[in-house]
């Protein structure tokens, strides 16, 4: 398949992962694999910032690449970290002259058989969420067309990751909302049940439920659920204060 067609195919495949069964690691692995297949690079790796801060290796086109990326994190120096911190592309056309910049990382990369590196930020407007590392077995400049294509792929992946995070956040909030409403509803139902069994008004029934939950160090909603499903016997509820 010609390069342009492969590239177009990759964009389609990346977009395709946005639908159901979305998996971040799968998306990013597709990205690193295609960088190697479509662009003129020896290996590709990708790091994302974790929710608690700090970068994590998310995808690598080979095991050697993964080891090198882990080393970069451990040494806290290297092109991926620089691209992430600055939000700008970082290039080293000859790693043998980069020992001043990344003394430990440059040696490790050369040992793994790589002569040059290009790191691209994963960025959307102000937010930098990670970086893509592209390694070459030869020295020299990467073709601008390849850099542009890699950055475009990284941009699409960035949007996918951010959308996925927003969707997850929405799901958590919606579950919290439903949980809060369920708790409130079950408390109202338990109030009704206690009011009927003990011949109290709703206010007194609520007081009885609340004192029981306090005296037994239980959450009000759990006591209410117990009343509804019969595991908390209504006569056991402490007497309400006289009206």
């Amino acid at each position, binding site marked *: 398949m010609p390069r342009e067609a492969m590239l177009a195919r990759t964009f389609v495949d990346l977009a395709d992962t946005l639908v159901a069964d979305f998996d971040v690691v799968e998306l990013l692995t597709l990205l690193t694999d295609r960088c190697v297949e479509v662009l003129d690079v020896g290996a590709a790796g990708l790091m994302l910032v974790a929710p608690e801060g700090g970068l994590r290796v998310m995808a690598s086109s080979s095991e050697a690449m993964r080891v090198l990326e882990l080393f970069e994190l451990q040494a806290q120096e290297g092109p991926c970290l620089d691209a992430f911190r600055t939000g700008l592309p970082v290039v080293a056309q000859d790693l043998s002259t980069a020992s001043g910049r990344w003394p430990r990382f440059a040696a490790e990369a050369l040992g793994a058989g790589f002569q040059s590196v290009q790191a691209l930020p994963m960025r959307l407007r102000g937010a930098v969420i990670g970086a893509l590392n592209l390694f070459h077995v030869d020295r020299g400049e990467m073709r601008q067309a390849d850099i542009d294509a890699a950055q475009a792929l990284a941009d699409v992946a960035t949007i996918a990751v951010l*959308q996925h995070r*927003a*969707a*997850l956040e*929405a*799901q958590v*909030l*919606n579950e*919290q*909302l*439903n*949980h*809060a*409403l369920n*708790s*409130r*509803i079950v408390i*109202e*139902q*338990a*109030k*009704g*049940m*206690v*009011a*009927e*069994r003990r011949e109290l008004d*709703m206010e007194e029934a609520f007081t009885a439920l609340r004192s029981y939950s306090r005296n037994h160090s239980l*959450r009000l*909603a759990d006591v209410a659920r117990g009343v*509804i499903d019969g595991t908390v016997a209504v006569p056991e509820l402490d007497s309400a204060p006289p009206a």
Partner: protein
Amino acid sequence: MAGERRLRILDLLGIGGTSGSETKRLCEVCAEATGTTGAGIMLMAGDVPRGSVCTTDDVSDLIEQLQYDLGEGPCVDAYQDDRPVLEPDLARPRTPRWPAFSGPAVEAGARAVFGFPLQVGAARLGALNLYCERPGELTDDQHADALVMADVAAQAVLVLQAGAPAGRLAGELEAGSDFHYVVHQAAGMVAAQLETSVGQALVRLRAYAFGNDRKLAEVAADVVSRKLRFDADSGEKDPRP
């Protein structure tokens, strides 16, 4: 363009409303932005309505009440089918649907009703309910505005809930809402009266309201104020002499 529509809607939301409640303002903007008579935001879970976050007026309030009482209507369908549900002429629908809902809704002044699903990503919240006092299709422009508005409203509900303490409903969502607490209190009482589950008690309450052509909320209020009892042997009793 969707971006411009969003900006216009956010602009409307930003303009200081006359109402103190944020969700009330949200509902008003839903109606203003879509050029409809009134709007309501209904939350749903497990395919049944939970209640209203807000409504703009008595008619939209009734539209939501009817759907809660009867379990049918444009919002219920929009949520269940996960797509917009459009009825441009509720009095003379092309395909009759919602037999119990339509009559009272038309009588109250809703001649066209529209339901749009409320969702953010995979999170499904409920439906946006829009009505018009005159029959007629939504224009393409109104339809596009409604889609953006449903998106904004869904996000607004979640943003409001994000500030709530754990396990509690956000105060901003509670204000002006109707989650039918009296109905649930009544269900608890009826469950005790009939020695049955609250789920079953809710079914009995709904059946009683429908059979007697009354609002569920009124029947529930009668149970709570002990004007109405449910009896296992002989059905419902009015204890008043």
